[in-house]
């Protein structure tokens, strides 16, 4: 990678932050319990990874995320395609969907726990609710914004309704679908983590809560960084796919 002014400044900013964070507790300006230190976080990270039980938490959280978000895609995309094609259905379902979209989806956590208990099902449900709405809304928008002239052109070449849908509307709406998936992803991750923080028996969010209430800031930060990294990697992967599709469409 070329050393540009941009990377230089960004790296320096991060480095300065780390140095201040490491040195401030040493000079006694701040209490290390409150802020921890980079060196302590690294040490805690090594302890956590080498100790048993870590993989179990990861697999619980990943499973909840995969099922919840998988369901969100499996239901959100087809339903969005249908809503995009049938205006009456859309006008009927749009207000409740928008109302849920404007509401913080994590506010549904307590009622979902009442319905589904404190096991994995409630996290799957929260991840699903968080993920499905952006996917649904963007898929619907993608279908509606398909260029009319493309549809007309396909029709004039005797394409049937099904052909138009599969060969014109579906590919044209795909970038919006992927955008919805990217937006839903972060909300689903947050749903799993906060769901686990709220009520759970295992998972990364469970550990965040545990170490948080024990005020083990270094352990807490390891888990927070892990979750952030997962979110960042997954989002970047979808974004890359998105850019590929946009350029392929041009």
């Amino acid at each position: 990678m070329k050393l540009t002014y941009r990377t230089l400044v960004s790296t320096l900013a991060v480095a300065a932050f780390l140095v201040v964070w490491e040195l401030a507790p040493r000079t006694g300006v701040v209490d290390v319990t409150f802020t921890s230190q980079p060196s302590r976080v690294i040490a805690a990270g090594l302890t956590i990874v080498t100790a048993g039980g870590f993989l179990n938490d990861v697999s619980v959280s990943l499973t909840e995320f995969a099922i919840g978000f998988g369901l969100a895609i499996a239901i959100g995309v087809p339903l969005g395609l249908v809503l995009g094609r049938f205006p009456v259905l859309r006008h009927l379902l749009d207000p409740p969907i928008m109302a849920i979209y404007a509401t913080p989806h994590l506010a549904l956590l307590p009622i979902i726990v009442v319905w589904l208990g404190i096991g994995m099902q409630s996290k799957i449900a929260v991840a699903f609710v968080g993920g499905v709405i952006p996917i649904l809304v963007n898929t619907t928008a993608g279908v509606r914004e398909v260029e009319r002239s493309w549809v007309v052109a396909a029709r004039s070449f005797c394409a049937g309704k099904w052909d138009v849908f599969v060969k014109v509307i579906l590919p044209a709406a795909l970038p919006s679908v992927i955008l919805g998936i990217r937006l839903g992803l972060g909300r689903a991750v947050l749903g799993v983590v906060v769901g686990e923080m709220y009520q759970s028996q295992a998972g990364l969010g469970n550990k965040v809560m545990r170490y948080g209430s024990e005020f083990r800031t270094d352990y807490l930060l390891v888990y927070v960084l892990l979750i952030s990294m997962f979110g960042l990697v997954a989002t970047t992967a979808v974004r890359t796919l998105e850019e590929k599709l946009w350029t392929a469409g041009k």
Partner: protein
Amino acid sequence: MDGWKMKPVFLGIASFAIILLAWEAAVRLGWVNPFFVSQPSAVAATLSRTARSGELGHNLAVSFREFVIGYGLSVVVGILAGALASRFRTVEYALDPLLWFLYSAPLIAFYPIFVLWFGLGVPTVIALAFLLSFPQITTSTLNGFQNVSPGLIRAARSFGAGEMDLLWKVVLPASVPTVIAGLRLGIGRALMGVVVGELFGSTAGLGYSISYYGGLLKTTDLIASLVVIIILGVLCTQSLSALEARFDSWRVDD
């Protein structure tokens, strides 16, 4: 088609009516257990009871105050940071990693640390609301300012506009849609911060009452608070959309 212009509105109202009727009917007919889902009539009764007893007003006031302070702070800081970053390249590049982190990190997980710093309750909730909404506002402001058409700026410059004139009379009006879009997205995130902050670390407010009644398995009271949060979310988002239309009215379509 002219007579059908109101169709979406009618269908929208019909939609809520159908949901409420089906919900009430399902409970009355004994298809579902009201212990889990409550029913609209009971929720309405609870809402009017808590409104008269002052409980609803108190929770609403607590949550709204936290929201206004947290969101207000992030509007001021976010627009300032965005403006500085758009004017000075170094600021933009230095802020970049921080914004990236704040975007991808599950910030709510920091709440135990906030409790340690600020104590349980209002300040922690405000901090969460601020931290969740300010990156959104900063990025949108930065994008908005950077994408002001260079032609507009050159035109203003050649008529002798100074730095301040440029900001107030050209850059701000031209970037209004993007900035307000950021403010609108920020509302959702600030509201999320308030509700989740109260869910975990508070002793009052709408989020707290959801969690409190959830713990007692009092679904009717839980759903009543949830309904208030939904209405609040819709109202806030709608009012910003209205603002967006108003401030952008000078623009003529190209």
